[in-house]
């Protein structure tokens, strides 16, 4: 079970949930939601099994500073 600190942290995080993404998911049918899950998993596994240079370029892209 959660301790007090964890509970407080989760309650704080609840305020930061991106509700637009929830709105979008809830607008989909159950089958469409399942396909979203499937595509996410497919991409994650593909990345995990990708050659190292592909993973490195993805890491670099995700950690790049946004241009002003």
């Amino acid at each position, binding site marked *: 079970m*959660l301790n007090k600190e964890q509970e407080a942290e989760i309650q704080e995080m609840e305020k930061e949930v991106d*509700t637009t993404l929830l709105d979008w998911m*809830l607008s989909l049918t159950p089958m469409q939601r*399942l396909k979203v*899950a*499937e595509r996410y998993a497919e991409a994650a*596994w593909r990345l995990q099994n990708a050659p190292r240079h592909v993973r490195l370029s993805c890491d670099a892209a995700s950690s790049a500073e946004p241009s002003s």
Partner: protein
Amino acid sequence: MPPDTFDYPAMLRVLLNHQVEFIVIGGVCAMLHGSSMGTVVVDIVPARHEENLKRLQAALTELHAYYREHPPGRILPNAERLNTTGHHLLMTSAGALDILGTVAGGIGYNDLIDSTVDVELEPNLRITMVTLPMLIQLKQETNRAKDRLALPILRQLLQRAQNDIP
């Protein structure tokens, strides 16, 4: 190696065609409830009586399942091996599938079945998954970092459902 393309509806259809009794839990269940948090596997809790485990073995054979932490074909799931409270981390021709004998410190199929809801994905493709309150309870009891990360979204969804916000 995982297959190039995953096919979750096909995976679930094979399980249902073999009349396997199972409950979908975890990240896919969360996404079916409306969570936007991605997951990389389908988690199911099967009934662990002998007949069901034989049906599960037949379904897994059709799905070319193997223990994904070992080379393909090295160790294959069978009814005897599946009859444990532990977790079986498999890769199939339709995607990664985790078969969980029990969850959250000993909760099994019979404990969960009264806290489930059926979802029709398409005609003749109806699956059983845990309710949102039960999913939240399981996440709280399991209490790994990734479970805690999922909780804010799941609680938001529950709040919306309770307030009847579409």
